[in-house]
C-alpha cells in the first residue's frame, strides 16, 4: 500500500485542530464517572464546569483549552506500507504548521534560549514525531497529541536503586501527585514509567499519561501496580484544580520496560483533564478519523 503524502499533510493539519476541539469518548466517560462519585461540593461544581466546557467547545466548534500545547505525532507503520520515511516527517511538520497558520492557532512553541516564536507551532525537533513499526497489515496510523504545559511542567525522574525496591516507585508517585497539587489541572491521568534507561523511562511515562482511559498496561505486573496506585492517589483529597475533593486523577497508568541489574528508574508525567488526542488511520479503504 502506497501512502499519498499530500493526504498525510492534510490529515496532520486536520488532526491538530480535531484534537484541540473534540475530547475522546473515553475521557468524557471518565468525567461522568468522577462526577457521579464526587462528594465535595467545590469539586463537584468544578467538574460540572469542565463538563459544560466540553459541550460549549462542541457547540461553538471552539478549542477546549487555549493551550495548543507542544504538538506530538505518534506514527505507527504496519507491514506492507510503502512510504518514504523522511518525506513522511516533512509532511507531518507541514500539516502542523498549516493548522497553526490557517485556523489560526496560538503557536505555543519557542526557541529554548532566545524564546523566539516562529508562529508555526514548530521549531527544532518540534513537532515531536515518534515512529514505530507494528504488525498490522497495510495500515498507517497517526495519533496527534497537543501536550499542554501545565501538566508537562510537572514531570519527574528518579533513578532509584534496586535496594529501594518497589516501595520507592510507589512513594515517588504519591509524592509527585502531592507536589503537583492543582498546577497540573486535575483530575489528571498520572503516567508512570518504570524501568528502562533514563530516557526510555521518561518516554514511557508520557506513553502512560496519554493512553486511553480504560486501557491496561500490557505487562500484568504493571497492570496490578496501576490499579493499586489509582486507588491510592484518589485517597489524597487534592481534588479538581487542587481545591479539594475525591477526583484527583481519572487513573494512574503504568508502562514498564526491562532495566539494568543495578537500576530502578521511575518517571512521572501527567496529563491534564483536557486529555486531548486524535487519530487518523490510513488503510486500503481510505482515511478514517478517530481517537
Amino acid at each position: 500500500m502506497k501512502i499519498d503524502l499530500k493526504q498525510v499533510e492534510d490529515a496532520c493539519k486536520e488532526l491538530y485542530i480535531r484534537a484541540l476541539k473534540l475530547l475522546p469518548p473515553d475521557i468524557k466517560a471518565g468525567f461522568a464517572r468522577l462526577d457521579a462519585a464526587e462528594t465535595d461540593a467545590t469539586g463537584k461544581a468544578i467538574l460540572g464546569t469542565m463538563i459544560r466546557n466540553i459541550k460549549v467547545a462542541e457547540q461553538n466548534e471552539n478549542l477546549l483549552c487555549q493551550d495548543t500545547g507542544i504538538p506530538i505525532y505518534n506514527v505507527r507503520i504496519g507491514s506492507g506500507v510503502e512510504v518514504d520515511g523522511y518525506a513522511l516527517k516533512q509532511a507531518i511538520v507541514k500539516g502542523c504548521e498549516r493548522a497553526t497558520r490557517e485556523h489560526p492557532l496560538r503557536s505555543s512553541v519557542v526557541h529554548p534560549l532566545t524564546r523566539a516564536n516562529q508562529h508555526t507551532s514548530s521549531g527544532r525537533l518540534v513537532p515531536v514525531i515518534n515512529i514505530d513499526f507494528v504488525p498490522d497489515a497495510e495500515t498507517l496510523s497517526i495519533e496527534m497529541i497537543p501536550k499542554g504545559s501545565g501538566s508537562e511542567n510537572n514531570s519527574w525522574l528518579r533513578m532509584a536503586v534496586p535496594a529501594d525496591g518497589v516501595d520507592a516507585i510507589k512513594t515517588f508517585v504519591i509524592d509527585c501527585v502531592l507536589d503537583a497539587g492543582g498546577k497540573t489541572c486535575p483530575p489528571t491521568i498520572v503516567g508512570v514509567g518504570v524501568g528502562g534507561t533514563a530516557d526510555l523511562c521518561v518516554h514511557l511515562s508520557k506513553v502512560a499519561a496519554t493512553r486511553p482511559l480504560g486501557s491496561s498496561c500490557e505487562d500484568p505486573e504493571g497492570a496490578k501496580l496501576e490499579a493499586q496506585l489509582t486507588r491510592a492517589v484518589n485517597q489524597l483529597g487534592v481534588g479538581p484544580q487542587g481545591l479539594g475533593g475525591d477526583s484527583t486523577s481519572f487513573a494512574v497508568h503504568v508502562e514498564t520496560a526491562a532495566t539494568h541489574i543495578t537500576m530502578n528508574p521511575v518517571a512521572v508525567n501527567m496529563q491534564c483533564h483536557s486529555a486531548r488526542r486524535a487519530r487518523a488511520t490510513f488503510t486500503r479503504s481510505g482515511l478514517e478519523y478517530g481517537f
Partner: protein
Amino acid sequence: MAHYDFNLPIGEADARRLAVNDTVTLNGTLYGIRDATQIHMFDHGRKTHFDMKGHAVVHTAPNVKKVEKSAEHPSGYASICIGTTTSARMERFTRPLMEEYGVRIIIGKGGLSQGSADAFRDVGGVYLAIVGGAAALETTWVEQIEDVDLDDLNPESLWKFRVKGFGPLLVSMDSHGGSLYTQVNNAARDKRAAALAYLGVKA
C-alpha cells in the same frame, strides 16, 4: 460564603471584604498577562501605557485572529479561544503588579504561594480561581479585545479585554492570610502516610 458582582476597577476596601470561598463575577475591563509580559515589565524595565489601578489581571495568552481594525475590533484582534494558564510560574510578579501598578485581583489556576499571600495581606488583594482548561466557556465571557500593548511579545502581549459576567470565580486566596491551596495541600499531606500504608510501603 457571599457572592459579589464587581464592575472594575475596585478599591482596597472591596478587595479586603472578600474571604476564601466567596464567589465573584466581574464586568468591565480585564487585563490579560503572562510569563513573558511580566519578565519584560519587571526584569527588562519595559512600561505599559495601560492604567491597571484597581484592576484585575488574568494569567493568559489567548488564541487570536488578526483582523482589520473596526468598531467591533478596535485592537485589530478577534478572539478565538481565551483561557487561563497555571499561575505558579508567575509567583514573583504578584507583589510588583500590586505595588507598582495597583492591581487588586489576580485570576488564575492552580494557586500562588506564600509570597503572593503576603502581598495580598500587605497591599490588599485577592486571588480568584477560574477552572483551568475550560477555555471554550471562558471565551464566551469576553465581549471584545479592546486594546493590546507590548504586542511584540504576542501571544504573551498585555491584553485589554472587555468582559461581561466573567465568573463566578472562587476566592481561593484572600487578604486575611486565607488560602484554599494551603488548606487542601496540608490536608493531602496528612493523608500521605495512610496512602503509603494502603500501598504496603514499609514505613
